[in-house]
């Protein structure tokens, strides 16, 4: 906002604060969102939260369940094409959420997205990233990850990478709808992962995908303590849930659950 007059510059932080508070109240009104801190504690450790991406509201929910102090130091990484396309979006994206805006279109890039994210981490902030790269509108639980997460893990190996599963938001606001349907959403935080000493890119990406998917449908129910993130054994993660609870498929938006979920269920 280089064109801002001093008066505007003075009032903007207050507006951003109020807008942020209003967004949190609205998110809670619609989704009664609950943070499920399964694998980590909600503390000020510097982290990269990587989450599934089904809706524009995903990072809002994640942001809402973070305690205020952590929220102020946590920046979502978002597409510049979307968040710079109008002045309202620019205000919300830049001022309210303090996003790290990256150019998704390779040909128009002037800055490398990974470099931008590393700079934000070096500034002491935590990040929210969506490694699928785009919104998942398919029936699959997850799209294949892009490699950005690996590059972050490689360049800043000490920072915790925390998988975060956001459930139900795709039912609240399916693609193309304007009015949200109030439904209860859960944001589940898994155990942090790090890049292994000899781990190559492909192996790490697969491990990160599985760590996130393990938190997915049927797993954010209370009685699921035994999440195994051990992927070396080659088996699906144990869900620690009885098969009877799969009947209702309450966490999946579609009765035709994907093949990934089905295989997980058999494994339980």
């Amino acid at each position, binding site marked *: 906002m280089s064109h801002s007059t001093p008066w505007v510059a003075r009032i903007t932080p207050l507006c951003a604060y109020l807008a942020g508070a209003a967004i949190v109240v609205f998110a809670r009104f619609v989704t*009664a969102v609950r943070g499920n801190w399964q694998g980590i504690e909600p503390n000020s450790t510097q982290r990269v939260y990587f989450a599934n991406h089904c809706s524009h509201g995903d990072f809002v929910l994640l942001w809402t369940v973070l305690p205020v102090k952590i929220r102020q130091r946590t920046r979502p990484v978002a597409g510049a094409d979307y968040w710079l396309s109008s002045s309202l979006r620019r205000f919300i994206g830049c001022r309210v959420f303090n996003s790290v805006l990256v150019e998704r279109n390779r040909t128009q890039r002037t800055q490398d997205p990974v470099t931008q994210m590393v700079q934000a981490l070096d500034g002491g902030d935590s990040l929210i990233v969506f490694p699928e790269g785009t919104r998942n509108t398919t029936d699959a639980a997850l799209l294949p990850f892009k490699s950005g997460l690996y590059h972050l893990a490689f360049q800043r190996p000490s920072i915790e990478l925390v998988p975060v599963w956001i459930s139900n938001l795709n039912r609240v606001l399916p693609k193309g709808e304007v*009015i949200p*349907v*109030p439904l*209860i959403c859960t944001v589940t935080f898994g155990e942090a992962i790090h890049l292994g000493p000899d781990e190559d890119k492909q192996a790490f990406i697969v491990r990160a995908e599985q760590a996130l998917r393990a938190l997915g449908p049927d797993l954010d129910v209370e009685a699921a303590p035994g999440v195994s993130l051990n992927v070396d054994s080659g088996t699906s993660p144990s869900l620690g849930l009885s098969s009877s*609870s799969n009947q*209702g*498929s*309450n966490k999946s938006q579609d*009765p035709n659950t994907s093949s990934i979920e089905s295989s997980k269920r058999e494994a339980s």
Partner: protein
Amino acid sequence: MSDPQTPLLLLLGCVGVVLIVATLIGQVLARRAPEGPSLVIDNLNARINAWWVMVILMGIAFLGGKTGVVILFGLCSFAALREFITLTNTQRHDHWALVAAFFIVVPVQYILVWYGWYGLYSIFIPVYAFLLMPILAALRGTTENFLVRVAETQWALMICVFCASHVPALLTLDIPGFEGQHVLLIAYLVVVVQISDVLQYVWGKLYGKTPIAKKLSPSKTVEGAVGGILSATAIGAALWWLTPFTPLASAGLAFVCTVMGFLGGLVLSAIKRDRGVKDWGHLIAGHGGFIDRLDSVLFAAPVFFHLVRYAYDVS
């Protein structure tokens, strides 16, 4: 009882004393526990704290009169519906129907109740929402699980909105000699049904042996249910002075309400077990969700409303 507020203040005073005693017992138990507070005691104290919040909110709503009570139960319906629809099979093609359920059916039902239009609020959801919902779902497309989805949505509306709205509807009854004291009927219903839940829990913990329906809820026992219902009926009879009823009629109504409340808890437990969840939600610490706390009131309210309307209303 010249001042119509006196009985309500007396009742609130009694509830306050009960809560203070419960809070003291809870704190003493937590301090005396040999190996620090246990999960059961923590849960008990969380429940007692939540009771304080609920009683205070009810008190504020009562001070707000009819409008306050209608808004309170309207918000409860909204929260309960949100919990219920979360556990259904609805899909993206139900979006319009669900938007209509939350943002049209809920407010219209409560405005009709506030307005006191008995002829419409008593059929609005069973007839008009019943016809509108499947139309909206059909217009949007898929046939997959159509009947299941439509039936689930209608059931959710009947339980979470229609049944719940019969609590504030008690304010619209026309009972000679009881003018200006209608909130006492709500206080009576809520106190009798909720104290029955608490007493069933207490009797069950003390003497419970024989499960009623093991698959539904291991904590619901014959001893707990009989003890809770009978003792709550006795309390209901003792509260006759709040109401236009004779002590005997008060005992009868309290008995019907507590039995309906017990059965309502059983039915809603069956749905939870089918969906593989322990609680409907998480917003009321220690209790679970709104439906977990309201289940018995939801089943008791319409029956209580119609019995009172038939026997005491003159309009």
